[in-house]
Every structure is written in structure tokens, then in C-alpha cells.
């Protein structure tokens, strides 16, 4: 079974890039437009890993992390923050909320995939790059 990823970002461009990267790696990728959507989709998608932006309408990335961590379902799922921000204060806040890791945009597909594999332990080969 391929790795299931939930990507939450309010930018269509970033969602498209993420989805492409995930699909090239042979992962299943669901996307959500903002934090509120992401949280509401979380149970149904039941991802192996979540990638979330921080600055989003309705519910920001910290809210997403807190909602998942305080939930009853799959609350220990790895959650990676993908943001253009790289300030220590924000990282600290994300970690305190329960983030698993922090990635800085722009991302490179292969490195992102490597990180996803590292935090999930997923070793499926997936598809080769087309």
C-alpha cells in the first residue's frame, strides 16, 4: 500500500506542486485548501503523514497541529510544517504544538520525499520518476 499524504496549503500552486511530487513518488496525496478543511478531511483521509502550511485562512497550521494532536484518531501521525518562514520562534511554537518537523519552501521533491520516508519509515519503492 502506498504512503498516504494529506497536504494542507491555501496556495493552489503549492498544492499542485506537492501533489505532483507525491504522485511521482508513488504516494497517494489528498489536498486541503486551508486548515479547517484539512482538519475536517483528516479522519476520512486517515493519512500516514500530514504536510501543512502555517499561514492559512480559517485555521492556521498551528491550529491544524493542535487539532490533530488533541484528537482521538491517529493523533500521533507525523506532521511536517512546510512554510516559507524559518524563524526559530515559529519553529518552537510549531514544535510545542506537536509538529514533527519543519521544512522550508521552496522544497525540492527528492528531499521532501526523503524526509517523508524518514519520518514515516515508509520504504515502499513507489513509482520511478516518469
Amino acid at each position: 500500500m502506498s504512503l498516504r499524504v494529506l497536504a494542507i496549503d491555501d496556495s493552489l500552486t503549492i498544492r499542485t506542486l506537492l501533489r505532483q511530487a507525491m504522485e511521482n513518488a508513488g504516494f497517494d496525496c489528498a489536498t486541503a485548501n486551508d486548515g479547517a478543511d484539512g482538519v475536517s478531511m483528516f479522519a476520512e483521509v486517515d493519512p500516514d503523514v500530514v504536510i501543512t502550511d502555517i499561514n492559512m485562512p480559517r485555521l492556521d497550521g498551528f491550529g491544524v497541529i493542535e487539532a490533530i494532536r488533541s484528537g482521538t484518531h491517529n493523533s500521533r501521525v507525523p506532521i511536517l510544517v512546510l512554510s516559507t518562514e524559518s524563524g526559530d520562534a515559529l519553529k518552537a511554537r510549531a514544535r510545542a504544538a506537536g509538529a514533527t518537523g519543519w521544512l522550508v519552501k521552496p522544497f525540492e521533491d527528492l528531499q521532501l520525499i526523503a524526509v517523508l520516508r524518514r519520518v514515516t519509515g515508509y520504504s515502499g519503492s513507489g513509482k520511478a520518476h516518469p
Partner: protein
Amino acid sequence: MSMQSIRDTFFEECEDLLEALAEGLARMESGEADSECLNAVFRAVHSIKGGAGAFALDDLVAFAHRFETVLDEIRSDRMELTDEAMHVLLRSADHLADLVEAAHEERSIDDDITAGFLANLDACLGDAGFEDPAEDADFGFSAITLDFGLSAEFTDPGAPGAGPPSSTPHISDGADPDRTTEFGTGFEETASPGEASADGLSPATPGSVPATTEDEAPAQGWIIHFRPWASLYTNGHDPFPLLCGLEALGASRITPDLSRCPKPDSYSPESPWLGWEVHLPSSVSHAEIDAHFEFVRGLCNLEIAPQNSPRVIEAGPSVLSNPDAAPPPPQMPIHSEGLETSAAAVMAELGAATAGVGVSDSQTADTPQPLAPRKRPSKAEDESDNRGPKPTLRVDLERVDRLINAVGELIINQAMIEQSVTDLSLPAETEIISHTEDYRLLARDLQEAVMAIRAQPVKPLFQRMSRIVREASEATGKPARLVTVGDTTEVDKTVVERLADPLTHMIRNAVDHGLENSAARALAGKDPEGTIRLSAAHRSGSVIITISDDGGGLDRDKVLAKAISRGLVTEGAELSDAEIDNLLFLPGFSTADKVSNLSGRGVGLDVVKNAVTALGGRIAISSTLGQGSEFTISLPPHPRRDGRHGHLCSRPDHGDPHFIRH
């Protein structure tokens, strides 16, 4: 999906974001902005920055970053939104739009121009200025940076009252032999191992080689001690992939470290105590090992030491008493050959062990867990990309046009059938006559519905005009504001696209030629700031767009004189006011005494008129001396679109009345 099409997606998204930005700034300017509006403005710029980074559009990223910084100051109330600052924001939004456009067209904008805008943004921030430019420079430009990089600041959230752990993963910190004894301290009856470890003191390497530095590979490889705290698990980490990754790096031995196992009478199922000792070959660099653990730094006890340093494993913790009076602690044979195993085998143990260790959620503990069949993300979720405040669907325009063409053919077909039926002169009660009638009504409904797909509000178009007014106002030194009315009026997409240039021209004209200068306005008892009014409405089946100014109005004598001097009118001709006004639309007519930089570019109102006519519309002017002028553009709701739907217009006997007005 190709990179090019994602790029196209980005620029499409930029248009939406720039529109949202303009709208939000307009609300800020009018003082109606709430915090959500400020956030939306910030996010618009932020999203442009984020997307631009993915395409290495550095100019755009750099500018958006500065812009965003100022917006962030405003939204967090650290900076006051003065008129001056508002002006800078509006101009910056304009420049951001220019940068996006330039990037889209793969050209660059002169750095000096951008530098001017950046200086204005900097000035907004006042003395505080911008943060460290070095940080600025590597902000989001570089390739992915994957770290929390916080080891020094992080305390284990599961360790109340603990000071910042000084346990950095580097051995230099642990080179104090005295600290080895700390391993046995800190356990209290109810304390979790997480707390104990957060005493900040890693077990260290007595008599270790203090000279070992990060880039120096030890002769006999590395020995790593890794013991997760509770927070490692609660932050979604799993030791299994970490250990597997070490195995992939070439770990020769991974040994469970059971030395922190509490005595049965003080055993807490919530407390993680299991650790591992890992031997890595010298071919692996310290930096590689560091990178491997970067996300868990500060969430575990981690010690990376050269293997040639003799490490004495001290006693495990005494659970019940203070360290001074500790009875001999339980010893665990942690170096037993029998326990040496591969990561996979260790994890089999871990699966069993962690069932009661710190991880109450079996989902994480039983790694790898068998995955129950789960629903794939549904189609609806995939399409959720397009969910906004109002659900919308992004559709390739070509598809819509194919549909419109097909409906156009259908309408003709319907008319032909109707005609054929009429020609049969059947009795009035014949069924086919009523069916034909139904068909006609359905076909009309279908056509209306299809044309509505192309309808768009004029708002984005009108918003662009506020920029034109700003620029024209600056260029002429005449203060002016734009008032828009009816910007939710929907018109065909073609109208929105093709009216941009004519409107731009007319708005510039209105400021440049229509408005008097402020001194003259003051003399006439008018507000020194001129008003340009732009409105859109549907009126009796047409779209009516008006552009008016409250300037001096047309000087008809001057207009007539000019027309005569240009040979457009014969001397002594008697013209009505309306006829004189319409002279403005004649090719080559210009009322400006001197060609100005702004609107006198040899493009006259005749070009505007041609553009409107091409859309199947008409333009008219009315003017009152001293009170201003008004241009009225009247357009059919579904404009002629050259060639492709010509038949819709070319069959006035059969087509929809909408299509036969020209």
C-alpha cells in the same frame, strides 16, 4: 502535469491573489478593514512569495518578502497605518503586480525601480528597519532546509520545570567525566524518564577524547546513544524509521539499552525508558548522523561519540531513593551479544516493549502497523482545490467555448426545425407544434445558462482602474479618487478583457483632460480632489458602463475650433452640441494643447470607439460645462467574438435577439 502548466497555475493564482490584495487594500484605505481582512492581505502577498519561490523568481520573492513584512507589522499592530503608509502599500501592490506580470512574460524589471519601492517599504518601518539582511538573503531562496535547529532552546514539553536541556547531541558537551554519574539521578517515584532526562545532563563519555570534532571521523566508528522522551512520541516521531535509517547508513550493531527500565513497583506505562545503542562505521560523518536526528533533537537523549572512547555504562536509575543513598540499581546486560540484532529485529522488540511505554496510542506503538483498508481521497476532496467562499470550478476556457459553439449550432438547428414545421402548415393542435415550442424555450434556457458561464463580475477590471487613477493623479499632480459603482455586475469574459485598454485610456483622459487642477477647482468652489466615477449596470438587456468626471466639462468652442483646424469640419458648419461632442471620437482628434506623457500618446478616443464597436457596443458622451463629462458605453450582454461565434450573430432571422443588435 508539466512544470509549465504548474507555472501557468501559479500565474493564474497570482491574478486571484492580486485581486484579493487590491480588494483588501481598498478596504484598508476606506478604514473598513477588520483583522481577517488584514490577514487576507498578508496571505495574498505571502502566497505569491511562496509560489514564486518554487519557480526561483527571486525578484518577486524578495519584493514580496519585504512587502509582507510591512503588512505583518500592520496586522500585528506594531505599526500604524498612516495615510503615507497606505499610499506605499497601494503602490507596492501595483509594483508587485508588475513583477508578477514581468515574471509571467519572462522579462525582468529594472532593479532600480524595485529598489525605489523597497526603499519606500523600508521607510514605512521607520527606525526599526528591516531585520538582518543576511537572514533576508537566505530567506526562502535556498533549497530546502530541513531542521528544527532548536536544540538549544528546546525543553521537553513533557518535562515540567526542567531547564533548557544542555544535552546537545555533540560530544563536546558531554566530555565531562563527572557527568556520567548523573545517569543515576533524577528519578523520583512518579517521574517520567522524560523528566529525568530533561535534567539536561546527558550521560557522557568519561575520559573521552575531547579533541573529537564534528568533521573528524573516528578511527573505529561512532557509538550513538539514543533514548526518546515522551515528547518524541507525542510529536509524531517513531524510532523505528530512525533506527532503520541508521541501519541504512551502515549501522553494524543496534542494541536496546534497557538501563533506564524502572523497577516493577514504580513502573509507569506512560514513561518511555527504552533506548538504543548504535554502532556506526567511521565512513559516516558526524554531519550525516546529525542530519539524521535533526527533527528529534531536543526530544530525546542523544549522544554521538567516537567509538574509541571507552564508555562506562553506569548503573541504571534507582527508582525509589535519592542517588546518594541508592541501593545497587538493577543491572541490565545491555552489551550482551545475544541482544545484538538488526534494526528490524529491534523493532519487533520495540513493538512489544512500547506497548506499555509512553505510547498509549497503539497506532504508533505497533509500527509498522497493518493498514486497514482506507478510503482513497474522494473525488470531491480532489476537487476541493477550488472550494472558496463560494464553490467554484476552474474550467479550461476552450471547453466552455466548445460548449458555447455546440449550443450555437443547436439554436440554429432548432430554428430550422421550427421553420420546417411552420412550412408544413399543420393544424394548430398538432403535437409537434407544441414540442417545437418547448424545444425553442429549452434551447434558449440552455443558451442563457451557457453564456452565463462566461460571465464575470467587472470588479477586477474596476480595481485595476484605481491604480490607473493613482498613477494619473501622480503624473498630473491633480488629486483624484476613483468611485466605483456596480462592480458586481457580471459581463462576458471577453468584455472584461477587451475593455481593459479602452477603460484605461478613458480614465487617464478623465484625469488628464477632464479634471481641472486643484487651484481651478478651488476657485470654482469644488473639492480640490477630483472624482472619477466608474459604474456598471445591466439596463434593458444591455451592459451599461459609464466613466464620468466632475471636471470642467467639454469646451465646445475649443472642440469645434480644433476640428476645423484639423480639417475634420468645414468652417462655418452648424453643429449641435451632441455633434460637437462626438467629434472627439473622430480619428486623429485631440483636445490637449500639448501632447502629455500620460494620455497623449497619439491614441485618441477613436481607438476606444473602435474597441467598443468591435464588441458590438456603442459609446456616447455627454458633458456639461463646469460640471464634468460622462462617457457611456453600451454593450450587448454576449458580445460578438470574432469568427468563432459569428453564426450566432449572422442569423438574425433565427438567432437569439441578444445576438442581433448589431
